[in-house]
């Protein structure tokens, strides 16, 4: 399975200088890089929120279009999925295949619910009667809020979708009969990714959504 095992003998754990598995170092480096991706997107949104506060001469009140109850619900679902993910990693470390399978399944379902909420939300916003928020306009007037909002939350949604497909891969693999504790490191890397995507949402939710209600 692993690239790294090509370096040491196949049936041994690869020996590394730090004692940390190569894949884990890779994943942490990737997450560091991904922070900068989201950092750029979030700053873009915040910059424009401040300098483009009006639309068609009127103050932009995005609360007219936001559905904070729905987003709060989907936020809760995404956070809860992290619990399942952590339990899945723990189960595979212990070699409990049944538990791993159920926990992966739970993570996938919750991830999918989150994605469904986002699809509903996007459709709802674009067609909100009188308050249409599209990629290029708000209430028919050219505006930047839709651009920054959809591209930012869309990028996050893409990350969640990639995570869901990755987890589906593991779920399918668990039925081949080959899954064992030897795969724990790979599942853990997948978990790191999943938790990171969650953490990004923990930043996005207050900064993009809640802040509109506070200030």
């Amino acid at each position, binding site marked *: 399975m692993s*690239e790294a095992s*090509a*370096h040491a003998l*196949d049936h041994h754990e690869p020996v590394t200088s730090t004692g940390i598995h*190569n894949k884990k170092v*890779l994943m942490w480096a990737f997450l*560091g890089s991904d922070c900068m*991706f989201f950092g750029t997107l979030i700053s873009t949104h915040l910059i424009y929120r401040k300098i483009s506060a009006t639309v068609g001469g009127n103050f932009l009140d995005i609360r007219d279009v936001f559905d904070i109850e729905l987003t709060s619900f989907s936020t809760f679902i995404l956070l809860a999925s992290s619990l399942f993910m952590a339990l899945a990693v723990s189960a595979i470390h212990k070699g409990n295949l049944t538990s791993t399978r159920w926990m992966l399944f739970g993570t996938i379902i919750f991830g999918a619910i989150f994605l469904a909420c986002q699809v509903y939300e996007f459709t709802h916003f674009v067609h909100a009667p009188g308050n249409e928020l599209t990629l290029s306009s708000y209430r028919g007037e*050219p505006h930047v809020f839709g651009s920054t909002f959809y591209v930012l939350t869309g990028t996050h949604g893409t990350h969640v979708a990639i995570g869901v497909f990755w987890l589906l891969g593991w779920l399918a693999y668990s039925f081949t009969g080959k899954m064992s504790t030897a795969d724990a490191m790979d599942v853990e890397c997948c978990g790191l990714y999943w938790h990171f995507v969650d953490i990004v949402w923990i930043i996005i939710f207050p900064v993009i959504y809640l802040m509109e209600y506070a200030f």
Partner: protein
Amino acid sequence: MATESIKYVTPDSDTKIETKAFPRPGQHTKGIVNWLTTIDHKKIGIMYGVAALFFLIIGGIEALLIRSQLWDHNMDVLTNRQYNQMFTMHGTTMVFLVIMPLSAAFFNFIMPLQIGARDVAFPRMNTLSLWCFIAGGITLNLSWFFTGGSPAIGWFGYAPLTDTRFAEVLGDMGPDFWIFSLQILGLASLLASFNFITTIINMRAPGMTMMRLPVFTWMTLIVSFLIILAFPAITIALVELMFDRTYGTNFYDFLEGGKPHLWQHLFWIFGHPEVYILILPAMGIVSEIIPVFSRKPLFGYGLIIFSGAIIGFMGFAVWSHHMFTTGMGIVATSAFSILTMLIAIPTGIKIFNWIGTMWGGRIRFETPMLFALGFITMFMVGGFTGIMHSSVPIDAQHQDSYFVVAHFHYVLIGGALFGLFAGFYFWLPKLSGKMLNEKLGKFVFTLMFIGFNLTFFPMHYLGMIGQPRRTHSYNEGHGFETWNQIATIGAFILGVGIAIGVYQFVTAAFNKKLKPAGKNPWDARTLEWTLSSPVKEYNFARTPIIKSRDQAWENNYGPKENHSDKEPLDDHGVHMPDRSWYPLVTALGIFGLVLGMLFHQSVDLNTGEIIRDYTYAIAGGVVAIIGIIMWSIEGPAGYHLFPKESEE
């Protein structure tokens, strides 16, 4: 040394591949398949280097066309638009397709040898990085053949030049090609950097502590960190630009609420670390060469590394000095001005350390050393003009003049390219097993040094008397002609020098007249020089146990307790991984995805509406995903080699 003394065995049952449908090309793969499927860091390094040298010639021809156009006032070698395309393509090519991949070629080839590893941490990912780079180079240059030709927006692609409504040619696809090629090239750089970071952190030979790492490896690590932290900014900026051009968002659209200024910030927050991404590898190379040719250890090893890290860190805090004339306000401008002045300190420390290394040494003026010295002197000129620019009032005078062109060519040719050429002359004997022709090397250096200074030194003056950069022609009566003609003559001399150098590098492996190099022709200091030239497939027959910095030197001259040791050879021998098709398949899928995205739009001639057809993009994406899935389930496989102790 003979190959027949190596005992080959069939893979044992434990290493059999799990999926039998598509076996990995094995040990005895030959010819083109061997190169297409290789996961050997040395072969990947060679391919990176050859492709980058090819693009160096392309970018050089573009530069010479620019210089021909500027030979005299109101010349007509190129039209206005062609001129804009030339400087755009020249800049983009030289930055992304020449200097960065040449550095990557050295990272790939040299770094694992310097740390005592048999390969990088993720060999197949390394191959994917190579093919993505080549796909990006092809994508960028395909733009010549489609609507509007190549991008004419500058390598910086400032908004609103990229706005579809301001395109000179209706339906101009140039900027789209530019956007997508930069995205794939960014992917290639990111993949390579994750790999190098993991390799350097995790795959050092026993005893190779961080403070025993050769400086070149340290610079690889720092540059890799710069890449993974800087490239996301340009990736997102390009995604936003793509959305603007394709789906009508308003990120940079000033008519609908966007701010072109944001593009400048996002571009330069990537673009300034990029400058250090280009120069730090050359600094690493020079830090290897100067001690060897002065026969002294590097003076201030720790300081050189620490300054490199500080340069990398501060490189993220100075981007707005590219934007002093945009009106950011006094506070921001002053802060960036001060930080820019501060970054000169670690750079100066490095230069003093190189001088300190040479001080009292027994200096040999062979070609690598000549290029290294050329690097120090020419980079200093570029550095000094850089410090001048950190002063806001002076910058306002120099902005968009030829003075700036002189400045960054002193940094990027006199600095980066001279450093990389020094690296070629230094390490090619290790790569090909043969010494390069020393006389020809010195001739190349002379041509390049003279041609380079003739080209770019007059530009300082031209800028001061007011010749604007990125401008197609100039009128009579400004007194620009003489100096421009000198610069053009210089550019052709430089071009001939580079062409001879490239010829020398590319033919090094085939030229029968060259003398064999042996293990350590320069009496050099670092670990790669303990290996035979060319390096064996497995690099190290037995993993070395490192006892000191400059291990090769210590083995020859140091006290007994500093000599490196070797781990015993395992019963299993050296495990070599099999080759793989899937990096290439994945890269082809990504290439297809990009082409599909580029051509997904068409206009219905009856209604004038835009029709979107994602079939080809999706097909490409599916191929890429299949590639990744097959990649993850194809299993390790491989074979074992049993080299004798003397064979490495």
